[in-house]
């Protein structure tokens, strides 16, 4: 069987698009995602996810992170992922997150990871979500209602790529 390049095996499913088309594609989100798209053009901070909550790094809102993920079978989640999926060949990990102000936040990622935000040992229900495959930047955004000053756990899993870029942005800062 022919082996693919690392890029292909990482599971990036879209061929590259010309920048103009990719930028237009982001307009297909149901909300204005200009803040997220802008963040995705900035220099990311490199972060290796934790395999447990104990070794999970703390991330901030309004920053772009380039995540290095771990084989999912090595990850011990704070709570079972809220959607049953196979973990064959999958990567995942755990991050910690705390926001200063309560409200809605968008967790935006450039690949198809399953996302859960854990609070008090349980996954929070998503307030909304949307995905645009062609967007050059965030390709999946999940909106959560987050409490202030509470350490939360952000869990990722089920995607066959060891790298991902992620942002957390407050919805209130979005351009209307």
């Amino acid at each position: 069987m022919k082996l693919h390049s690392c890029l292909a095996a990482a599971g990036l499913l879209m061929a590259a698009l010309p920048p103009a088309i990719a930028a237009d594609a982001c307009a297909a989100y149901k909300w204005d995602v200009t803040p997220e798209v802008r963040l995705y053009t900035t220099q990311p901070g490199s972060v290796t996810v934790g395999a447990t909550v104990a070794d999970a790094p703390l991330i901030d809102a309004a920053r772009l992170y380039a995540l290095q993920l771990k084989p999912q079978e090595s990850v011990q989640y704070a709570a079972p992922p809220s959607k049953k999926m196979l973990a064959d060949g999958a990567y995942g990990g755990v991050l910690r997150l705390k926001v200063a102000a309560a409200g809605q936040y968008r967790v935006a990622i450039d690949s198809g990871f399953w996302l859960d935000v854990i609070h008090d040992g349980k996954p929070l229900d998503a307030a909304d979500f949307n995905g645009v495959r062609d967007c050059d930047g965030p390709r999946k955004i999940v909106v959560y209602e987050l409490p202030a000053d509470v350490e939360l756990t952000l869990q990722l899993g089920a995607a066959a790529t060891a790298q991902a870029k992620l942002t957390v942005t407050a919805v209130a800062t979005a351009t209307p």
Partner: protein
Amino acid sequence: MTPHAQGDSAVSAAAGRAPFPERRSPPAWRDLDTETREAFDLGLAIFNTSWVIAGTPNAQRRDGLGPLFVAASCDGCHNNGARGRGEPVGNRLPNSFVMQLGGPPTVYGAVFATQALPGHVSEGRVELSWSARDGRYPDGEGWELRLPEYRLTQLAFGPLPGDAVLQPRIAPATFGSGLLEAVPHEAVMRIRALQSHAVRGELAWHEDADGKPRLGRFGWQAQAISIEDQTARALAREMGLTSRPHPQDDCTTQQAACRNAPQGGSPEVSDEFLGALVTLQANLAVPARPAGAAADSGAVLFERTGCASCHQSVLPVDTGSGTAIIDAYTDLLLHDMGEGLADRRVDGSIAGSQWRTAPLWGMAHALAGGDAGLLHDGRARSVEEAVLWHDGQARDARRAFERLPAAERRQLLDWVGSL
């Protein structure tokens, strides 16, 4: 409703229904033994999982996606087993949308693949725009519909011929599939015989692998004879995944790069995995009607207007150990629904207007998400819009609905929305 134990021959007026406390973990409609439960759970995990490129390390069970495809997972379109999400506003194409292709074979195959693996080029893009259509009920109240217009662009293999048929589709719900499969075809034939000439539906007969006639009952036009048939088709055509019943994906002979792409095994979906997906769908319950469901006066109106002639509330189901009754609100027959809903060829001519009566059970669950896309292409944003699109053999029923006083129209719509 308490799911029946296997072997229980009791008859229930709402067999197959169960509460859905968690959308992402739809329940089974009956008690499952250990082996079936394991297959059900495995099927749900497979349903939710994105398939990956052939050769992905440690992913041999779930590799072989594409190279041309529409979605990477069943759930990508089928939305936790519920009907696909629509897009109430704007010109966004729903994520649950697929453009199937009919008519004489073309280089594009049976499905227009809008996604491709790295190193391949998708077959193109689908652009959607809407035109408004408005009118008034006889009592003066206004209504508005939206008519979709599709444009296929960036065609990678040249233009489609004029006689190619565009078949826009949104994913139907998979709830209750096992019960629909268990409706004896004789019962469907009896229903048809009792329908008046004006609304009498057609039986969608197809041949199985042994050449025997089987009744089509799955898919918007009843093109699939069984859950396995429907599942294998979708895996092959929309995800590029081969299976024993469907050993060829949608790569055509003119698409050399597609046909020569590495495979994730032969077949790519193992018998175990296909069986688990079938077990899942065969046992998926239908959401129970919500507490405080709309008054039965709506049911009376549903009957009086003629809606119930096709959207049958009582279907017998052979459970293998007795008979049960389901309230699927379908006759599993094909009906002419008029030009407005017809598929069209690339040259604009009408290609086909026959549709399997869509089951209405689970409608409350579909509407609760706030983004239901009703009818075959998701154009209808509400039950009212879906009703107003009814034409052809359903024209008289639609007109009877239109002539109702506004309060009764609302009662009927609320009742349908509570199913």
